[in-house]
């Protein structure tokens, strides 16, 4: 069964149909062909698919597309202002936190949501904010550096 989804993605009204069983991640990646949010575990364990949903970071792979109805969604594609990167994006580049880069969009969205909530996050806030994100490449040092740098710059 196909359902109609009316939502706002990166500030733009979007209206599209999808199978009722479609996850938000599939809706983004397959229906809208926005491939920036990444597919990995598909079970809500790795954070690669993180998007901001009404101000909160969520794993889009375990959220139904239908739940996007009427919601405000921000994805990695919506952060930069034209050619100007968002400070969190810039911080990931500047600290060398982008190795393979596959976890990066998810981290950036989790960190953006954190820094929207609090300008001066503590180490505990940071650990909590990215506790659902896994990076297999960096060993986390440079990701933590990126978060601190982004917080300092904002």
């Amino acid at each position, binding site marked *: 069964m196909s359902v109609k989804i009316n939502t706002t993605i990166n500030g733009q009204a979007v209206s599209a149909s999808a199978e009722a069983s479609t996850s938000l991640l599939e809706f983004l*990646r397959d229906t809208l*062909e*926005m*491939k*920036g*949010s*990444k*597919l*990995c*575990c*598909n*079970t809500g*364990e*790795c954070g*690669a698919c993180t998007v901001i949903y009404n101000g909160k970071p969520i794993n889009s792979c375990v959220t139904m597309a239908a739940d996007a109805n009427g919601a405000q969604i921000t*994805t*990695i*594609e919506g*952060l*930069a202002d034209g050619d100007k*990167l968002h400070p969190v*994006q*810039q911080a*990931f*580049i*500047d*600290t*060398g936190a*982008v*190795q*393979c*880069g*596959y*976890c*990066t*969009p998810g981290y*950036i969205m989790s960190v953006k949501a954190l820094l929207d909530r609090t300008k001066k996050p503590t180490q505990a806030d940071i*650990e909590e904010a*990215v*506790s659902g*994100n*896994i*990076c*297999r*490449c*960096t*060993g*986390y*040092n*440079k*990701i*933590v550096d990126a978060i601190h740098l982004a917080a300092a710059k904002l």
Partner: protein
Amino acid sequence: MAKAEYKVIGTSPARMGGIDRVIGKGVYGIDLMLKDQLHGAILRSQYAHAKIISIDTSEAKKLPGVHAVITAEDAPNVRYGRSYIDRHILARGKVRFMGDPVAAVAADTLAIAKAALKKIKVTYEPLPVLIDAEEAMKPDAVVLHDDMPLPKNIPADVKVRNVCGFTQVHVGDPDKAMAEADLVVEEVYETKMIHPQYLEPRSAAAQMEPNGRLTVWANAQAPFPVRQEVAKMLGMPLNNVRVISADIGGGFGGKGSGITSGAAIEPICGLLAQKTKRAVMIVLDKAEETISTTIRSGAKMYIKTGVKKDGTILARTGKVIYDTGGYSGFGVQAGGRCTNMLGGWYLMPNAHIDGYTVYTNKQVCGPVRGPGGPQAAFAVESHMDTIAAKLGMDPTEFRLKNIPKPGDKIIGVHKLRDVSLGETIKVAKENIGWGKVKLEKNQGIGLATGSWIESAGPGGGAIVKVNEDGSVTVHVGKIDMGTAPRFGIPVIVAEELGVPVEDVTVLSVDTDASPWDAGTVGSRAILVSGTASQRAAIDARTQLFKIAAGQLEASPDDLEIVDRQIRVKGTPSKTVALSVVATNAHNVIGEVIGRGYCDNLELMAEEKAHGSSQPFTTHACIVEVDTMTGNVKILKYVAVHDIGQPIHLAAVEGQIEGATAMSIGQALCEQVVFDKDGKTLNPSFVDYLMPTLNMMPRIETTLVHGYPGAGPYGAKGAGEIACVPPMACIANAIFNATGVRVTKLPLSPENVLRALKEAGKA
């Protein structure tokens, strides 16, 4: 070599391709979309070991939206493999692990493809399942591969089965030396299978072109070996197969080694494209990936060492049982390496070690990050601390006592060039506060060393083109997965051509255009592509200078390039822009195209003459053990490495930190768990535990300098070695904290608590 000599070598400029990745525009394998593509899906064996009696695909074929259903009958009857050519792309006659591909479907949607898989009826006759490699070796075990002979070098009196690799280390007279020892210590260590768990799932897309060529898009680490094997499996000439590399979301060797690592998804996808004359894409589900693609093998290691009272090591004997799974994969090479490394990287005048690579009914060994090394190091370096304790010696003094000097040989290495091992130990002691830091109750300090040989293998080329605006385009055959091609290579080319790093573009691999290469494997990206790129850039520079010489009325030998300008050394006013010279090249040589090659024979001759300039490392940590729960918390972790001259500093640190984290995962929590029928009990990320930020200490990395390697500017590979010490490092700290030696990985709360209880300490 002092850093100051260089303009950009050893700095940390922004990674090439970083912007694409932070804005969500990196196109990884799974992001590809081909026009009118079909979705492929693979039927995996439900048995770990069984005869295939029949496969009925008729119902599946009838399903609307299904375009092809293939089994082994549809593929040429050829096998692939590395040492033992023992595997078909789709199982033929027998399945040998759960996850072995049996059939594949291409359909309009993934949902239809999956529905079709359910309609394929396979009749199996189950056979006995071998889970434990030591059991599988026994002379009465069921034979997994009837037509695979035992390795030729196995001694005739050794009665074994299911062995596909045998390595024997024999030096001096170990029996005699053992008899003369003041102390003999004998232990058994065991590591479990882990999955590399790169975040991006394996994928492949394939399309038949109207002219009969096949294009394959792969997120594999070795596009040229993939091309070769796909061509062989599909019976096509190499010039009709083109493999294009997508961005790659991590590999760690799990996406290396040709088609072996992906359980042949590229040729399966290619076959579906051939049958349907359509584009087909396959993306593995993460749980499917865990059960079907290649892994780091578990190993059982018997180790025995004889020492003198003063701590001098006299002899080592041992046995390695290396579990390669249902097919040989990379198990022969990894098992061999593990066997050599069980001899350690200290002076070892007498040794005898037998290493067996054994078939079992589990997923297959791949060249995962430092194949064979971390397992051996867990045994060797834990064992060193056990011996030191029995001798009443400080573990670092015991190690320093047995360190080789330049020119000495160690097991598996005929001669060492420089030896940074001692310095890494000293710096690690300093950094962790060895003997100084005050430890609270249940806290312990531990240390472990490691070494690694950049694996031998063929060289590879580079092409450096200088465009008419002075920007530079580089072709190498190695892919970027957060490794040298888009970190170190632009730095090298910029250094040689006097341009900013951001003027250099390194292209993705396309087998139609890129120079041949064996792949981004074995810590060889800097060694091979770095050397080739440096030489290609120098070749391009020579061409530029020849053209510029006339214009500047100077000899080519007197020119230099600084900030995109070619100028006469010492006469900065005599200059011409690089862009002008590159444009003028159109009239003279057409285009400035530098070519470089890393000559493996030259490297080998160099090593033969002067010895191996291999990297060494020491890691040290402080842990706290909760004796009620068995939980281990790492309070501090230092990693000291000699990797020669760093090319891209942040990349080197990133490789070290990432590899350390991976082995901390293997130390504390990771393992693929099987039931007795060979079913993987934790295929998804819900149950497969990996290190997350909150369980990770900050890894404090220090590089020691002054030990140049064989790579460009004296670089050494940095991708794998940091995987070697962490397991023993943590086990030694637990031993220091509790007096209990845990000999089986992982050092999970359950295993630690059991060991504490057995020792009456919990």
